[in-house]
């Protein structure tokens, strides 16, 4: 076939009708339909990223975007004297702990939604989604009122004649609590979906072949639910590493997280190039981590489709 095409190039050219040539010049129907969305994405999503990238290489403490090029901002970030690594450490650590705690907390709920709650599952799911309708900051201030001295917890205990609640507010621990609370739905729903993908037949069959509950969980349920669990973990990790409100509101700035550092650079210190450089580093770090995880996470193989 290929030989034929090479031997008669003139015949092939003659076969192309004028209509076909016109179609080659213009965009295809699909591309034309996608144009509005592509423009919107270009302006709304890509442009800010390009601007950030531009600022990252601009002269420190200036607004000379795209007109200057320097690596000074990155040099500042990687300077051992800079303590930004501490914020980075806090963000990563808190995100890791959040994911670990969520995995343990969400699994039984996801299991319940699939196997135990029956017709109540829909209602219970809605209850878990409901807090998302209220602004995150408002919800976090709600927790402040709950834990603050003479607040809901402390006040109630004192009213009952007890010594009063523990001093938990404005500590790294309460920040972690806030993050677990905020990101629970983002772990729960992918996990529920993952568990829903485990056919009941397989569990019945494993049991019939002599397996006990723990063995079935380890050999059948967990591996088959893994795609959902891993997606939930990835999602909550990415969200948690960019979290600021919990550390600011509940943690009372007892610790500074990386996104808070970026915010300070853009607002208080008016050093957009440094903030941009930090944002670029964090974005690349999370992006690389996500791509690495996704490449390891072969969903088809896990589900046995291939």
């Amino acid at each position, binding site marked *: 076939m290929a030989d034929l095409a090479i031997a008669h190039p003139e015949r092939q050219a003659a076969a192309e009708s004028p209509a076909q040539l016109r179609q080659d010049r213009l965009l295809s129907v699909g591309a034309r339909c996608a144009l509005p969305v592509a423009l919107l994405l270009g302006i709304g999503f890509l442009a800010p990223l390009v601007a950030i990238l531009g600022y990252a290489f601009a002269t420190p403490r200036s607004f000379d975007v795209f007109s200057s090029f320097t690596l000074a901002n990155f040099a500042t970030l990687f300077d051992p004297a800079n303590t930004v690594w501490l914020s980075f450490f806090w963000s990563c650590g808190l995100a890791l702990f959040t994911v670990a705690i969520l995995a343990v907390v969400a699994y039984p709920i996801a299991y319940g939604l699939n196997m135990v709650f029956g017709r109540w599952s829909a209602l219970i799911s809605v209850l878990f989604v409901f807090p998302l309708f209220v602004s995150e900051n408002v919800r976090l201030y709600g927790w402040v009122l709950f834990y603050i001295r003479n607040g809901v917890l402390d006040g109630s205990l004192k009213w009952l004649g007890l010594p009063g609640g523990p001093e938990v507010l404005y500590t790294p621990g309460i920040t972690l609590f806030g993050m677990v609370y905020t990101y629970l739905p983002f772990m729960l729903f992918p996990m529920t979906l993952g568990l829903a993908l485990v056919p009941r037949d397989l569990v019945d*069959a*494993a049991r019939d072949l002599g397996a006990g509950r723990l063995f079935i969980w380890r050999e059948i349920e967990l*591996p088959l639910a893994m795609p959902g669990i891993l997606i939930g973990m990835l999602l909550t990790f990415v969200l948690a590493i960019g979290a600021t409100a919990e550390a600011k509101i509940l943690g009372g700035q007892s610790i500074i997280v990386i996104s808070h550092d970026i915010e300070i650079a853009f607002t208080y210190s008016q050093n957009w190039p440094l903030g941009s450089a930090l944002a670029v580093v964090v974005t690349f770090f999370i992006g690389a981590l996500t791509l690495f995880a996704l490449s390891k996470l072969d969903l088809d193989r896990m589900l046995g489709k291939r």
Partner: protein
Amino acid sequence: MLLTSPAALPDPASPPKPILQLVGLRKSFGGFDAVQGIDLDVREGEFLTIVGPSGSGKTTLLRMLAGMDTPSEGNITLHGELINDVPPNRRPTCLVFQSLALFPHKSVGENIAFPLKVKGVDAAARKARALELMRVVRLPESYFDKNVMKCSGGERQRVALARALAYDPEVLFFDEPLSAIDYKLKKTLEKELKDLHRETGKTFIYITHSLEEAMVMSDRIGVMRAGRLVQVGTPEEIYGAPVDRFVCEFVGEVNTFQVKRGPDGAWNGTDVPGTFTLQPPASGAVLDEAFVVVRPEFMRILAPGESADNRLEGVVYNEYSLGSRIQYQVRVGAKVMLVELSRGRALPSSADRRVTLGWDAADAFTLES
């Protein structure tokens, strides 16, 4: 010595002792009785098939036997021990699911070795046993590491079978495992399953909606309808002496017509013309009205002068080739009768030919209508 006492020796005259006994077994879901009172003795080492249309309760019955459902009433005993509430993982029984329920994230070998892993058998012994079982079910050894989802329908069937055998159950249950397989392969697998039953000597309880499948494989067949066992017997008994119209029609295509006793005591056809000589019903009941069943293979097309106990005049409407046999559709008034002849006795030209159908009284069943 107890072991050498005559009682301990098997008595060749008596039938094999029941391994599984069902007494008054009943299962209700809400107000609906899926299984309504089943008594059955399953003999050790037999191939018993429960056959019935969908919704007859056969799967519910099997789930109770496998331990996945608990009976609402009645008892299941295995070797004389009550097992009603014994969970499936503690029963020496194993079910081959309709979906086969193979573990998609495990290889062929891992699937087969699963019950051995549960028992804590070490990896080398597991592999050896799995390969041995793969030979038994005729799977090539190279399949050991193959992804089970990449196997064909027939191969998956064999994997599921090998996995069940790896559990080494005393009784194997099958829930229509061949229903999704093409005809030719199904025929092969049916025979293989029967061979396997012989090789292993285990008790097989098989469920299907296809009596044809049941006939090929079974030592005994139980016909189920609306939660009850209508008839239990050997394939010959089911085929040759069906207890009622349901079993009769379930067994295959049959010719049926109604008869009524005339004032002179003779049986007159109600929906076909003529007077007929019939056998008394097997139930021994004295009837005024009855229902006559003649299988297509017992109907003959009479040559001039040929005699038969009963005859009907009709016109051939169509013929269907069944391979080695030919089936003719003969219209007798408004009634359609089927006649099957071997190819050697085929009519030279059939369409619109006037024929006389004949059959002997001994080849027909008389049933209560």
